[in-house]
């Protein structure tokens, strides 16, 4: 089970702030593909993924128990 978190524009697109995904293992790239297919207009090309609160690379592996956050372009300050 992987926890997924959505913020800002992506929370609106997904219609939720958090959910779980029943998978044992997948790559960041596969997770982004899943999100794009699940939520039309997700815009995965402009989204980074943080795994356990650190930015992850597309080829990194996500495992059951990890917390993943979809990070759209930030705009703090």
């Amino acid at each position: 089970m992987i926890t997924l978190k959505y913020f800002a524009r992506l929370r609106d697109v997904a219609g939720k702030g958090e959910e779980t995904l029943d998978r044992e293992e997948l790559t960041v790239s596969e997770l982004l593909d899943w999100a794009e297919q699940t939520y039309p207009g997700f815009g995965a090309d402009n989204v980074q993924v943080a795994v356990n609160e650190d930015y992850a690379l597309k080829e990194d592996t996500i495992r059951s128990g990890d917390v993943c956050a979809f990070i759209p372009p930030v705009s703090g300050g």
Partner: protein
Amino acid sequence: MKPFEIVEEPIDVKQYMDYVLHPSAGAVTVFTGNVREWTHGVRTLYLSYEAYVPMAEKKMAEIGAEMEEKWPGVRVAIAHRIGELQISDIAVVIAVSSPHRKAAYEANEYAIDRIKEVVPIWKKEIWEDGEEWIGAQKKYPSKGVE
């Protein structure tokens, strides 16, 4: 207060200045980012900020560590407010002390640049006739241009 924190209440600048001040500090720079009413001719009514709080605080602390490495002797405190902010409210404060002023100025500017790059905080602009999450994917609101 914590030296690197996300807060929901109005920011009290002085407590971050006080945190970085110590006997070897000869200079303190304080930057505040404030809510601006007009952006590219579009009037903002207010802003709404959201953060991935634990990661945002962690990233701000990492920026502080980068600054201490680049400018030895600096002491840093950073706070960013989330929730609804009105015009002129302080969204972010960065306080930096150093033995001499040059490092305090340079390190402070580095901090705001890095915050805008890596800290998971998002701003939504609310206008009279709409609203939009702001991000680097758009240079400025598409509002009114169909």
